[in-house]
């Protein structure tokens, strides 16, 4: 009886006070399963593991990281969906998983099956080529293609392949679009001469700085930090872009205090450039970009809804 009363009291408190206050008190009821949708050892995986490590140190929460890779994050999403939603199971994917990939797959998953926690960082998605090709801008690429060169355009996801197709279409040229595994795969292909140009999501920074690679265009809605002069896809006549973030998600219906506690803890770590996790985010992805709460929900729902238009445009 005493327990029932105290439970009732707790519920009353939850409605009385702002969730922020409770989020500060929230502790996970057990170890947290952290599903990582990226291959072990890569930049994204390292980011996830370091965030977990920092949270273990700062908050005393216990994390158990686990790789669930493949199918552009759909495998992870399918596995995470049926996990308990008390904050003991979360996953890290990219926003593209909940947007384009869910819309394009017939897995039946939608963003409504998940709770968005927070994004951590965006991509510096550029169209990149070897500088030894002699191309200074995207116009040179178009000129080369119009001059009869058959150009191979590497893309690491179906969404990017659609964008590559559309940018070609807008400029009146045909690219041979080659699907490649991961940004590293694109970079290997470009370096080895197997590809003429391709998408890279930040991995190109060092090569561009050294002068080996050149950012020909920004696939984002905004110019690239490193090469602000490169045209955006909008400048090139494409109404879509490759904007995207790394994002932590949980199963649908996660209690607000768990959601807020996890989101603010993660955001705090990546925003701190002196932490190991914040350091790698700064180094590899140009700094933290944390979107959470309703803003994130709107972003994910919007991406999912807009994916249909891109799919349609690319199938014409």
């Amino acid at each position, binding site marked *: 009886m005493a327990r029932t009363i105290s439970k009732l009291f707790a519920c009353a408190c939850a409605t009385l006070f702002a969730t922020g206050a409770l989020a500060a008190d929230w502790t996970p009821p*057990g*170890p947290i399963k952290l599903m990582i949708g990226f291959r072990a050892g890569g930049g994204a995986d390292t980011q996830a*593991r370091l965030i977990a490590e920092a949270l273990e140190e700062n908050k005393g929460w*216990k994390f*158990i*990281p686990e790789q669930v890779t493949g199918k552009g994050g759909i495998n992870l999403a399918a596995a995470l969906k049926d996990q308990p939603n008390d904050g*003991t199971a979360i996953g890290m994917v990219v926003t593209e998983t909940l947007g384009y990939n869910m819309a394009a797959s017939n897995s039946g998953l939608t963003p409504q099956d998940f709770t968005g926690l927070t994004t951590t960082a965006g991509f510096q998605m550029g169209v990149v080529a070897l500088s030894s090709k002699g191309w200074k801008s995207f116009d040179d690429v178009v000129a080369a293609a119009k001059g009869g060169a058959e150009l191979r355009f590497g893309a690491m996801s179906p969404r990017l392949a659609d964008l590559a197709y559309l940018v070609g279409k807008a400029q009146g040229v*045909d690219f041979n679009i080659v699907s490649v595994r991961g940004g590293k795969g694109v970079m290997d292909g470009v370096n080895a001469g197997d590809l003429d140009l391709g998408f890279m999501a930040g991995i190109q920074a060092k090569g561009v700085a050294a002068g080996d690679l050149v950012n020909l265009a920004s696939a984002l809605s905004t110019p690239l930090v490193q090469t602000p002069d490169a045209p955006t896809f909008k400048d090139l006549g494409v109404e879509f872009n490759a904007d995207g973030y790394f994002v932590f998600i949980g199963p649908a219906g996660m209690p607000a205090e768990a959601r807020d506690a996890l989101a603010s803890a993660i955001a705090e770590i990546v925003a701190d450039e002196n932490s190991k996790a914040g350091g790698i985010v700064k180094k590899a992805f140009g700094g933290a970009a944390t979107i959470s709460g309703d803003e994130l929900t709107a972003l994910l729902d919007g991406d999912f809804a807009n994916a249909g238009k891109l799919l349609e445009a690319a199938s014409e």
Partner: protein
Amino acid sequence: MGASRSNLILGLLIVAFSLLLLFVWVPLDTETGLIEKVRRQVTIGDALAPTVAGLFLLIGGTILVLFERKAPQQPTVGLSSLGFIGAVALVLIVSLFAMRYAGPALVAIANLASDTPQEYRLLRDAIPWKYTGYFLGGSAMLVGLISLVEGRIRAVTVAVAIAAVVVLIILYDLPFDDLLLPPNGDV
């Protein structure tokens, strides 16, 4: 030995399987065909690679039936082999089920005597709960296999099995915080 027909039987089985693969499994269980057209470009579909695998099997099986049917020194598969692998499979299945469900079962029993019910999932990182399944299942597997081969159960077998499982726990669980012993990743 010369009279063994194992190559012929094997070849026919492989041919049958490859036909099933090529004409039933692959067409029904892939999303795109051998090639498909997307973005005005012809690309290779998801069915092509398994079809190539099926062709390897079909060609291999056919060569076996047509040309290597009478090859010398064909192995024979006896009934005793099947019996042995069946017994091994039984030991493994029983011990792996013990590994998977011993922990949750123990928690359920503990809950009978306590009025704060607990969940194994939330205890999977807590000593001693996290070792129950691996310890019981692992020991059962070792005792089962060793005793099967020796034809008897000895006290020393049990002792060795328990010692080995403890060493493996020390090897994998103590130094590495993030590694999970079976079955703690599933719960």
